[in-house]
């Protein structure tokens, strides 16, 4: 008879394939996200190759701010994986601490992004300023929505852990982490595509 339960992060969880069902679900979701962002990035690259004047537009973006935000997101991936490592060690306090850091760093990323958008719009480059800016706001906006989603999920996990409600569902930290790292990977490509390729 097929195995219906498996251990994940120290707790028994459902499985139909030998892989925890929750993890399978997250990977299916991430597969759809790869197509979503991949399609957008692919169209951006082709539009950029087929247009003139885009590098001059991209030169108006602030590389130091983009670099700072990349640093913030890379660091948030570290704190997220440390939260998961704490779960595996049974370290409740460590899990809560690293989850909180991840939430704060996610919020920091969003605040910096909002400041950046504000200064670009203030400099006369709104969404309608041209093809490059349409792609820029669409791609960074969609990505920021994903960061916001991750912040919400991590906040729920943190508050649940704080109130002692996470209990046997600590493996959800790993699932949230998979999503968070994926959002980081997307930014790893958006940063050079938008900020450095001019």
């Amino acid at each position, binding site marked *: 008879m097929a195995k219906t339960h498996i251990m994940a992060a120290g707790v028994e969880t459902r499985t139909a394939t030998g892989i925890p069902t929750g993890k399978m679900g997250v990977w299916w979701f991430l597969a759809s996200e790869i197509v979503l962002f991949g399609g957008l990035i692919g169209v951006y690259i082709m539009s950029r190759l087929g247009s003139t004047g885009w590098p001059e537009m991209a030169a108006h973006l602030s590389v130091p701010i983009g670099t700072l935000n990349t640093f913030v997101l890379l660091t948030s991936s*570290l704190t997220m994986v440390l939260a998961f490592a704490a779960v595996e060690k049974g370290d409740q306090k460590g899990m809560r601490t690293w989850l909180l850091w991840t939430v704060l760093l996610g919020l920091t990323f969003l605040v910096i992004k909002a400041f950046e958008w504000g200064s670009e719009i203030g400099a006369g480059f709104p969404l309608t300023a041209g093809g490059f800016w349409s792609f820029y706001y669409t791609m960074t906006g969609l990505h920021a929505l994903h960061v916001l989603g991750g912040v919400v999920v991590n906040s729920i996990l943190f508050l649940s852990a704080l109130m002692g409600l996470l209990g046997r569902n600590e493996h959800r930290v790993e699932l949230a*982490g998979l999503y968070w790292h994926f959002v980081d990977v997307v930014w790893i490509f958006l940063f*050079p595509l938008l900020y450095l390729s001019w």
Partner: protein
Amino acid sequence: MARERVHPNYVAIWFWLVGLLIVSVGVTYLPIPTRITLFLIFATAVVKAGLVALNYMHLKSERLLIYAMAIVPVAIFFVLWVVLYPDIAIR
């Protein structure tokens, strides 16, 4: 079969990621041809993404099915891109 989960030194990976970030930004200031600059910044991006996926998402110790779920959509993206590219290249 799933391999035993590998626990890399997560902090060391972070140092690599930050180092590669500095390299990718630094090469844009070097007086080298644009093609080489573009190659270097996207090569470092691919390495950074690989480091995150293999170590932080633990793909290193995942089953083949998970690899397939990650790689098939990436392959679909490249196929679509290559199929559509001539439309731009020969315009």
